[in-house]
């Protein structure tokens, strides 16, 4: 079955200050794919995500989400077009409870009216949904806790739960394993895999833990010095000699 292209990036150039950070990057991502973005520090991975999500201005190039050009869309407009974004410094609200964080995501995803909390039926339905989503990431017992009291790994899991609740066809995840213990990495991997396989989301992940990434993704894009160096299946990328020299120094 032919899959739709969810994200199309053509000849992307992003300049910040006097420095060209992303140089002529083109990539197409199909529905349901999990694509890994790797590269040395400072090669422009997060800037690439910022450009896709509207947080960095584009010099030249074209970005389309679900066939619609989004170059002139603000970040919140792109989010409404089906783009969900995770952040390096974790994009959850630490002064709210876990429940409130997920409720916010559900409210946005379903465009609930302002008075929904005063409808008993609606409140029950949303509460049930919150419980299911938090249970999926093993955080149900912390539902009423402030997010700021969670550990680093638990915050990442909460972010996955939030991305799930937000819906959207395209999910960008930035270094999900940063500060996460090996035990929780397994849960994180499962959460991400579930988003794609069970809920049909298309996912791009920036990650430095190559073992974590290569077990998860369908395809890898390598950025070096702001340019797309290569693209291919995890095994192909792993065996590339020049990449081993650039990335691992071997």
């Amino acid at each position: 079955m032919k899959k739709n292209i969810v994200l199309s990036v053509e000849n992307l150039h992003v300049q910040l200050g006097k420095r060209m950070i992303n140089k002529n990057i083109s990539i197409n991502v199909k529905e349901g794919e999990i694509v890994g973005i790797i590269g040395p520090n400072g090669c422009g991975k997060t800037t690439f995500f910022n450009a896709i999500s509207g947080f960095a201005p584009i010099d030249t190039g074209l970005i389309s989400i679900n066939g619609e050009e989004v170059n002139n869309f603000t970040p919140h407009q792109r989010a409404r077009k089906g783009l969900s974004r995770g952040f390096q410094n974790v994009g959850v609200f630490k002064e709210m409870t876990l429940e409130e964080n997920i409720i916010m995501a559900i409210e946005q995803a379903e465009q609930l009216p302002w008075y929904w909390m005063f409808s008993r039926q609606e409140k029950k339905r949303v509460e049930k949904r919150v419980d299911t989503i938090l249970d999926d990431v093993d955080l149900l017992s912390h539902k009423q806790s402030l997010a700021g009291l969670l550990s680093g790994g638990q915050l990442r899991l909460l972010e996955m739960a939030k991305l799930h609740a937000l819906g959207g066809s395209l999910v960008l995840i930035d270094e999900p394993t940063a500060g996460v213990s090996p035990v929780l990495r397994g849960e994180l991997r499962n959460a991400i895999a579930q988003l794609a396989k069970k809920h049909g989301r298309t996912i791009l992940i920036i990650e430095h833990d190559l073992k974590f990434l290569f077990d998860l993704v369908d395809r890898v894009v390598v950025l070096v010095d702001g340019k797309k160096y290569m693209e291919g299946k995890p095994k192909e990328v792993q065996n590339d000699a020049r990449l081993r020299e650039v990335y691992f120094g071997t």
Partner: protein
Amino acid sequence: MGYFYTIFARFLASLGQGVGGQVSFSMAGIFLLSLPVCFSFSAYTMAILHKKFAVVLWVSIAIALFLTMILGALFSYIYTKVSKDSFTVLCLGSILAFDAFVRSFDSLTGGVLGISGILRPESIRTLPALVQFSFLVLTVILVAHYLVLKSPMGRKIRAFKEHPVALQAFGVSQKSVISFVIIGGSLLSGISGLLEVFRIQFLDPSFGGIPNLIVLVSISILALKPKVKAVLLASVLVVFLPELISFLDFPSALLGHLRVLLYSVLLIVLIYTISGKSQFQKREI
């Protein structure tokens, strides 16, 4: 009895402005120091329209509130264009600028002599009637405030303070939150200004200004938690506590300064308490 009606009327006016302050300062993290300008602006606009241009009183009130919202929209636009620090300074400057405007254009505003004999609407001509009306208005405001706190907008406002970038990634426009907070706060200050000017029935450049700002900031900081109860208690503390000084044997010329000193001490104690109890600091260690 007149004294208690007066204090209660002052409390209700402060509470209305305090709600706007709580939402902007404590919940959204927007230092909307221009609220005293909106407080004075609506009062002066109503008085000028009614007394100088013979506009019907209720129409003057409606126009004054509408123009106050326009003023709020202007501040909202400015907030999106300048840095937070610049906005704070600009708001402080607007208080001084408005004071200078009022003093200079005396043909319109009465200058330093002000505008006297401001009549209350027919239905609230007496002080008890004004207090009842103010109570009704504040009940509506507090119910609306409760609904906002529980609604998606309440969460968006709190999220805006903490992580505005993540809020955008949720699909929420920052501008919509900023506009809601600043225009809403300005309107509430405008309503409070009208209630207060109807109580004292006189306007001069000392109306609103820095003393009003001190009261507003005190309530906003004391009402740190996003709850109706918090702003109610904060307003009670800020308005009624200094009244206890009146019953002490101090010269009347000192009473005003003692109030300001009391607010300053309250703020220092509160800020010290908050910084000591920060639970997230413990986590980071």
